[in-house]
């Protein structure tokens, strides 16, 4: 719920920016249309853009149970095609039903983005569909749990087991998944972009920890039961290096 609210807030901010941008170009557009037929097609050069995910930065500041960072980068290789990558690290402590666990790890995602948005002259906004291959290496630490007891007799069923038994670290875990990306990026000022992307994840494989499960996978987020799909998003601020590689 907290997450949802944060996102409604963030996306509404972004929506405002977009609307303003759209209006500006509409008035500009009428002036430029005359020149359109005379315009010489400009060659689209390679350009590199990099930045960070703001959501994870803010969440790390505001929550004791989350420490995370995600760096993003993309390289324009054709007019509408980008090679894109994300690298991140996460340390998260959460209460999942009966179990309190800490997941710690790193992940990387690499793939491409395709821009479907036709920009007006001078604009550089993106409505993007993309695909990523992603992989994480992480460890899970069971901090405490309560036992399922349908007929409690001796002890309070809320008795926490916080040492020994099934508690402890499950190191050297891996997960491998495919990510479908939908999002947009808006150039807010010259070379600075704000972006939002939603990701639908399809888990391909994961190492299942001993006497436990991958309840949280860095970069993939919550792994649900009987279901190979997950979801994640990012809210990025990126900077395009003004320097352009000539093709």
């Amino acid at each position: 719920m907290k997450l949802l609210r944060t996102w409604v807030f963030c996306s509404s901010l972004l929506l405002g920016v977009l609307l303003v941008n759209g209006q500006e170009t509409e008035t500009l557009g009428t002036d430029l249309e005359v020149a359109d037929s005379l315009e010489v097609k400009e060659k689209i050069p390679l350009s590199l853009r990099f930045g960070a995910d703001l959501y994870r930065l803010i969440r790390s500041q505001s929550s004791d149970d989350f420490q995370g960072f995600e760096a993003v980068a993309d390289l324009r290789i054709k007019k509408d095609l980008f090679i894109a990558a994300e690298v991140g690290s996460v340390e998260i402590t959460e209460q999942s039903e009966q179990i309190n666990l800490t997941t710690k790890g790193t992940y990387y995602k690499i793939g491409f983005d395709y821009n479907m948005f036709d920009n007006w002259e001078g604009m550089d906004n993106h409505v993007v569909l993309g695909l990523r291959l992603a992989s994480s290496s992480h460890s899970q630490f069971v901090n405490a749990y309560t036992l399922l007891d349908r007929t409690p007799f001796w002890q309070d069923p809320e008795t926490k087991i916080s040492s020994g038994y099934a508690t402890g670290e499950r190191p050297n875990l891996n997960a491998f998944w495919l990510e479908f990306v939908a999002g947009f990026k808006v150039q807010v000022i010259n070379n600075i972009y704000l972006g939002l992307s939603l990701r639908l994840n399809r888990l391909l494989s994961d190492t299942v920890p001993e006497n436990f499960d991958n309840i949280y996978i860095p970069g993939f987020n919550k792994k649900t039961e009987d279901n190979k799909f997950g979801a994640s998003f990012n809210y990025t601020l990126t900077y395009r290096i003004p320097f352009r590689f000539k093709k």
Partner: protein
Amino acid sequence: MDTLKFKILILFIGLGFFTQCEKDDICISSVEGTPDLIVLMLENKNNTQKTPSGFTIRPLGTENILAVSSGDSLALPLQITEAVTQFEFILNQGSQDENIDTLQINYQRVDQFINRACGYRANFILDQSPILILNSGNNWIKGAVILKDTISDETAAHLGILF
């Protein structure tokens, strides 16, 4: 026209947030929890199952009497915080020749992961010598046989008590 398309698309992406449902994690009731120790009372002479006369069991340290229905197996709750649980096995309860034997069940606990929603359940492994009779003299309980040393469910009996 393009800006309109753009806005519509953004609207759809925005809608994604609201429709992004998450399955609730509910531990369904058919999933078994921590099992009890299932005990059979066996007559020493011919190893046949029988309920002694006036037989009750009281977990030591409580006033509760476990219900004993005749000819049936008994479900004894084990403590998870200890490696032993003690019970009073009472013969001819209330009558002149009442005989109380105090039994200690020895075991080890191993917690087993069920799933995300249900978490863990305790399993128990009976020790090589599963019972210890704590009172001396005039014991009506003769011993015990392990029927199944891993207590992970309640479908079969784990321990036979000989009398």
